[in-house]
Structure formats: C-alpha cells, structure tokens
C-alpha cells in the first residue's frame, strides 16, 4: 500500500500550521506496513522548529513499520531541514549551518534530561548568530525549556521527547518546540476530575499556578505558570497544542481554538525575545527570615 500526503502553502507557528501537521497525523495514524510519501511540491515555507512535530509523527509511523519518503522538497525547505539535521534522521543529508541559526532536531529518551540540558547550552544558547544576552536571561530561557521537558517526562506517558529550534534574526526571536506523543493534557485533566473535559478548558486549567494532576506527596503546578510569567516579561509567546486544543499567549493576550482533528500528544512552542534587555536580577529585598 502507498499513501501520499501533500503539504501546501506555508507551515508556520500558528493555528493553521499546526492544523496541517495534525491533519497529516490523523490521516496516517492507523497505517502499518505502508509506504508514505510526503509531497512538499506546493509547500512554500516550513518553519524549522516545527521539525520537532513532523519528526514525532514520522517517528511514530516508523515505529508502526511504515516507510516514509520526502518528495519534491523545494530547495529552500530542503536547505533548512538539512541544516537542522532533520532530514539526516530520515535518510537525507545534513548540511553546514553557515549562518548559525538552527538548533538541531533531536529525539530524546525521556530519561535524557542531562543530555537535553547540554543540548540547550551547546546548541541553543551558543548559537553564533544570537545577540549578546545577559547571563540571567540565558538562565531563565534554559530553566523555562527544562520545565517543559520535565513536564513532558512526568505527564507524557511516552518514551521519547522531540525538540527543535530556530533563530529568526529579523524578528529577534528564537522559537523552540518540544513534543511528546502519548497522553494529552485533556486526558490527564479528565482522568484527574473523573469527568470528560474539553481540550481547551483542560489546557486553561493546567496552566494556572498550583494546578496539577499529580496526587501524591509532591506538590506541583508551578512550572508552566513560572514559564508564562517569564514570557510575559520577555514579551515572548507560548503556544500549547494538545488533543484538539490550541492555546496561545503573547503580549497582546490569549487566544484559543479547537482543531477539527485530534493530536495524541502535546506540543509546546516557546518563542523567546532574544533582544530582551530586562535584567532579571531581582533585588531580594524581602526578608529571608522565616521563609517557611
């Protein structure tokens, strides 16, 4: 059997871009022992950090013993997906990243947090093209990404975590995506409340401080709210896709929508403003006595 999937127009970090990827996931998710062609003939733009999403989907297809091929890749898309090493993970070539703007695509085991930490330091924060950032800003960026990795590790119910990033120099932004397949926020929250909750309200609940689906002796529910507080100061953006829910927050507010299709996993995309000049060094004026 053979199945061909066509990617059209622009695949960007927005609702429409995620919808195209989720549609591909849905059309292929039950395939086994198939030959799958990804046709990029009419695709004019592919935002490189979304390689993490595409990689997670292809990885699942390969796990289900399908063979996946890329057809008609336009030169500019082939170039960026070679530079970020995405294509070399699927039989293609890798290419030198002359401008130093790509954070390579990687597939991690969920226990790989030490390797992941080094990857953030060595591949993202050491990008030669990044503007000079203060050490506290770098630290906050690293901590934010690690919070998401740990979240995926804790709640993802999956063995792999996929990530990829891209620096967009004209915008002064780095987009970094982390993807896990397996459970969704909707499933976790529905299980916790023992009732069916829609994906968007489930995401909205999960991002609130102190909200956690954990029930043991370790408190939680602060990682995402800490990330959102920082992103607000940084004037960045956070997008969460889980199940059929899409949720986004940036400096102009919060948006949410529902996809037609369902994604059996969670995508978190964080857009950092790397031209941020906030100091992030807090005065620490509050008394440190009796802090408990």
């Amino acid at each position: 059997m053979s199945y061909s999937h066509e990617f059209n127009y622009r695949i960007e970090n927005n609702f429409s871009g995620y919808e195209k990827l989720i549609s591909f996931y849905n059309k292929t998710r039950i395939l086994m022992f198939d030959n799958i062609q990804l046709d990029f003939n009419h695709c004019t733009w592919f935002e490189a950090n979304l390689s993490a999403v595409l990689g997670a989907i292809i990885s699942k297809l390969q796990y289900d013993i399908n063979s996946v091929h890329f057809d008609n890749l336009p030169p500019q898309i082939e170039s960026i997906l070679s530079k970020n090493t995405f294509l070399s993970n699927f039989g293609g070539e890798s290419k030198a990243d002359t401008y130093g703007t790509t954070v390579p695509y990687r597939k991690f085991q969920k226990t790989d947090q030490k390797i992941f930490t080094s990857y953030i330091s060595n591949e993202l924060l050491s990008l030669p093209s990044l503007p000079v950032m203060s050490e506290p800003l770098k630290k906050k960026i690293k901590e934010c990404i690690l919070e998401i990795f740990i979240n995926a590790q804790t709640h993802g119910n999956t063995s792999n975590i996929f990530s990829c990033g891209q620096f967009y120099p004209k915008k002064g932004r780095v987009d970094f995506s982390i993807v896990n397949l397996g459970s969704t926020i909707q499933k976790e929250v529905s299980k916790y409340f023992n009732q069916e909750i829609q994906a968007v309200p489930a995401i909205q609940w999960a991002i609130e401080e102190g909200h956690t689906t954990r029930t043991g002796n370790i408190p939680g529910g602060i990682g995402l709210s800490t990330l959102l507080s920082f992103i607000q100061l940084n004037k960045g953006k956070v997008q969460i896709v889980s199940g059929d829910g899409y949720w986004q927050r940036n400096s102009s507010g919060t948006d949410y929508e529902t996809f037609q299709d369902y994604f059996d996993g969670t995508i978190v995309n964080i857009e950092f403003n790397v031209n941020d000049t906030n100091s992030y060094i807090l005065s620490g004026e509050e008394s440190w006595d009796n802090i408990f």
Partner: protein
Amino acid sequence: MTQIPIFSLARNRGIIYFNGATMTDKKLTVVVHELIGEDAAISTEDGNSLYERVEKAIDKGASVAISFKNIHLMTTAFLNAAIGQLYGKYSSELLNLKLEIIDLADTDKVVLRNVIRVAKEYFKNKDQVGKRIDIELNRDN
C-alpha cells in the same frame, strides 16, 4: 554544648508537640552540588534525594542547612520534590526552626518562595482540591 528542645510531629498535619526532652545540638549541612553530583538541580529524583536527606536529619532532631553553592540551574520540579514535599510532613513553624537555605541566588529565592507558597496551598487543600476545581471548571464552561 547547647541544649535544645526536641519536637515530635503528628504526621501529615504539621502539628508540633513539645515533649520536653533535650538533646545535643546537631546541625547538618547538605551541599546540593555534592549530593546530586552536578551544577543543575533539575529532576524530581534528585529533589527526592535531597528531601530524604533532610527528612532523616529532622527526624533525628537535627537542624539542616541546605547549601545551593555552585548550583547554576534549578527547576520547580526539583524544588517541589526537595522542599515542597516537606509540607506534607512538617509545619512551617518547625521548618523555620530546623531548616535553613543558604547560598541561593536572589532570582532563585523568588522561585523558591513561589514553590513554598504553592506547596502550602497544595497540602492545605489536598483533600478538597478536586471538588473545588470541579466547580471552577463547570463555572468556566
């Protein structure tokens, strides 16, 4: 040697009973970097290791200083397991008496304060949290 009172605790409710006994003043310093073997305190597992060390010391009547010297990176997952978890067993009063945090950067102090605040709420509402948020969700929908 200083003589100090020893406390026994009612599990999970943080009630402190003074039993009038005295003991030799003991203080343990746990250096996080040495305990976890790296400068990044990230995982819940590493947080649990620190929690277990602190728990053991407090249960033996000792005071504990946790040193974050040379820790350059920290997540709330680590702090929830290491510090937040303590509120499931000990009261704020006892922790203020027995526990000290040293060598922590000012930016990390802010994060730790948040972890402590959320942990107190978590254990305060642990039994009712499901019901309370159930109502909130229905209202939002």
